[in-house]
Structure formats: C-alpha cells, structure tokens
C-alpha cells in the first residue's frame, strides 16, 4: 500500500478501516495505516466517522440484548444456602445419587448403552432464508450443525416464546436439548412435537422423545411412545427397549 496515495471513499477503504478498528492489520499494514492517518486529515475524519458508527452499532445491539438478559433473572427469594434445610436437601441428593449409581452399575443391560447406540442428532435443515423473520432460526441452525447446541437453544428459545406452535422449532429445540445433555427439557419440547400429528417430523419426534425418556429411565413410557409407530427406526428402537 502506498501511503502517499490519496484515499477514496469506497468499499476497499471501508474494509481497510474495519480491519484497523477490529485490530486485524498486521504490523506492516498498520504502519502504513498510521502514516496515512498522520498525512491525510480527510482520512482521519473517515476513520473517526467509521469508529463512531462501529460504536453505535455495538451499543444499539448491546441495549437490545439487555432485556433478554433481564428476562432470565428469576425472581427468587434470597436463599440462605447453608441453612439446615439446604444441607438436608444436599445430603439427600448425595444419597440419591449413590442409590442411582448403584442401581445403574448393578444392572447389566444398561439403558445408557441403548441410548448411546441409538442417539445421533438430526442432521438439521439446510440454511436457506425465507422471510427475514427466519434469520434467527437459521442462525441457530448454523450453530446446531456445528454442534454448538447451547447457542442454538439460546437463539431458538426466544423464537419459541413468540411461536409456541411451530412444529419444526419445538422438534429441533427438543433434539438440541437432548444432544446438549438435558433430557428433561428435551422431553418437554418433544412431547409438544409429538402432538403435531401432521408434522413432517412426527415419526422422528417420537424417536427422540423415546430416547429422552430412556435417558431419564422412564422406560415404560418410552415403550408406550413408540408402540403405535411404524417407521423402521422406531420399530427397531422399540424392540431394543423391550429387551431391557
């Protein structure tokens, strides 16, 4: 780059200034850049203008995020964590975990094995934009496909709040939660998906719902979920569950 060249206000310049503001220029480019800054007041003004715009976009989006952060603060009475009640609860949890792991390790055929052998997250949908309001959904889908399930869930949950009836959304929220290790949440969403008998995801929703229930050791309920199903995957899973 020739620092003595006058700078035009075009896409190239805008991208160069962005690289500078984002700290992405290498040492040589940075030296050139600073030289230009010192030589051309007009360039300096352009950089300042872009810096301000950058700041404004950031602040605008931060402010828009705050209410969402706020909605996650639960209105709970203050807890005294070390009160005898809490200690008792903690103690009973430890006992419970002990009993549960004893039960699991003493059970030769394990639901875990069946789960591990059968659980593979749905590959997801191709990201093609329809209407602009679907951006967030597809943005989440990109996260989902990259196995960034927590991110996908946090993008989809607000959309779910506004569209609780969307079968695609509840189905993927369910699978993402299951992939993220949260079978209880998965069960909640997949049960909703399982009620949408017209949905393209109906059979798949049953499959993942059964796996969520299996993960929660609700084997009877998992069997019941699959019992009216005819898809090969569901039939095969049903057989494995019955053998447990």
């Amino acid at each position: 780059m020739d620092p003595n060249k006058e700078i035009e206000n075009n896409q190239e310049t805008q991208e160069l200034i962005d690289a500078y503001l984002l700290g992405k220029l290498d040492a040589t480019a940075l030296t050139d850049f600073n030289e230009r800054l010192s030589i051309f007041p007009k360039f300096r003004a352009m950089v300042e203008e872009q810096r301000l715009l950058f700041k404004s976009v950031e602040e605008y989006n931060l402010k828009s995020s705050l209410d969402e952060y706020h909605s996650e603060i639960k209105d709970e009475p203050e807890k005294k964590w070390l009160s005898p009640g809490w200690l008792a609860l903690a103690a009973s949890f430890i006992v419970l975990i002990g009993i549960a792991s004893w039960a699991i390790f003493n059970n030769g055929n394990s639901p875990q094995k069946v789960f591990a052998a059968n659980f593979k997250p749905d590959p997801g949908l191709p990201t093609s934009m329809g209407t602009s309001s679907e951006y967030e959904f597809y943005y989440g889908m990109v996260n989902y496909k990259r196995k960034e399930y927590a991110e996908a869930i946090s993008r989809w949950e607000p959309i779910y709040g506004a569209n609780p009836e969307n079968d695609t959304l509840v189905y993927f929220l369910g699978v993402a939660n299951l992939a993220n290790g949260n079978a209880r949440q998965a069960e909640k969403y997949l049960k909703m998906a399982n009620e949408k008998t017209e949905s393209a995801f109906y059979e798949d929703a049953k499959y993942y719902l059964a796996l969520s229930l299996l993960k929660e050791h609700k084997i009877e309920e998992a069997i019941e979920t699959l019992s009216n199903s005819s898809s090969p995957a569901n039939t095969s899973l049903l057989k494995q569950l019955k053998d447990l």
Partner: protein
Amino acid sequence: MRKISNEKIKDLPFKETVALIKKNDAATLKQLYKTNFAKVKRYVYKNSGDEQQAKDVYQEAFVAMWRNIKDDKFSAESETAINGYLFQIAKYKWLDHVRSARYKNTTFINRELEYDEPEIEENEMQNRKIKIIMNSIDNLGERCQLLMKLFYFEQKSFKEIAEIMAMDEASARNAKYRCQEQLKKMTQIIPNGPK
C-alpha cells in the same frame, strides 16, 4: 448448558474476561448482567425506588460500564472489581436521579447517602452523535440491521456471516458495504448529525 458457561467465566483469568467483554461475548455479558442485578435492586428498593426504576438505572449503568471497559477507561485487577464498579455506577446514577427535581420533596429514611463518585467519563458530543446513529439504525431494514450486528457487534468474519445469512462471501461483503453507506446517508441528512 448454562452451568458450563458460568464455570467458564468463574475460572477465567480476569484479563480474559475483559477481552471477552470487549469482544461483546454474549455469555460473558449475560453472566455479568445476571450476577449484579440483585444488589442494585436491593439498593434502589432501600432508597425509595421500584423494580422498573432499578432495572432502568441498572441497564444504564451496565452500558456505561461496558463502554468504559471498551475504551480502556477502567482498569481493574479483578473480576470482583468489575462487579464493584458496576454497582458503583448504578448507585451513583440512582442517587443522581433521586436528587433530581421530581424527588426533591420525597422524604427518605436513608439521609446519609455517602458515596464515591465513580469515574464515568462521558463525552457529551460523542454521545449525542451515537444517539443519532442509533436512531438511524432503528430505521434500517431488518437485513441490514442483522448484517451490521453480525459484523460489528458479534464481530463475525464475512465467511461466517455468509453462512448465517445463506449467501456467498462476496455478496455478504457487498451487502455490508451498501448497508453501511445507507446508514451513513441516513445520519447525514439529520440536521446536526455526525459530520
């Protein structure tokens, strides 16, 4: 999943937290936000405020804290210091509000309100301009808003933006340029706008 991000933040060295705040890392910002509200709320309640007022003053303080960290105007040595700083700003802002005309005649129990004024350097001129640009962003199309958000707020590469918006990289570049030019024009036609 949330648990993981909490722990991530707790265990991070302080410098990395600052770096994450500067990069607008959503998990870090959210955690910081959620951690400190209760204390501010208690303070505002104690000093004749209500829930909504606590929320407003807290959000204002949060933005001020974030801005000062980004501009390197706040150098702290620990995570606790950030929390303390955020609380100080909120407290200061609330007291300022309380002492304003509307509250002049209100009696309150806690008369001895001593506090150290935190350093909130605010550049009035710049703030005014930022406000004007933010108003223009509001009027930008949804697609442009998202592009600008992904590029400047989430600081994604064009490659990632292209993937998220289901377009190719060159189109993402062009679109971002056009959106930005549009935004610039919108702010310039406003009298006394930037420039």
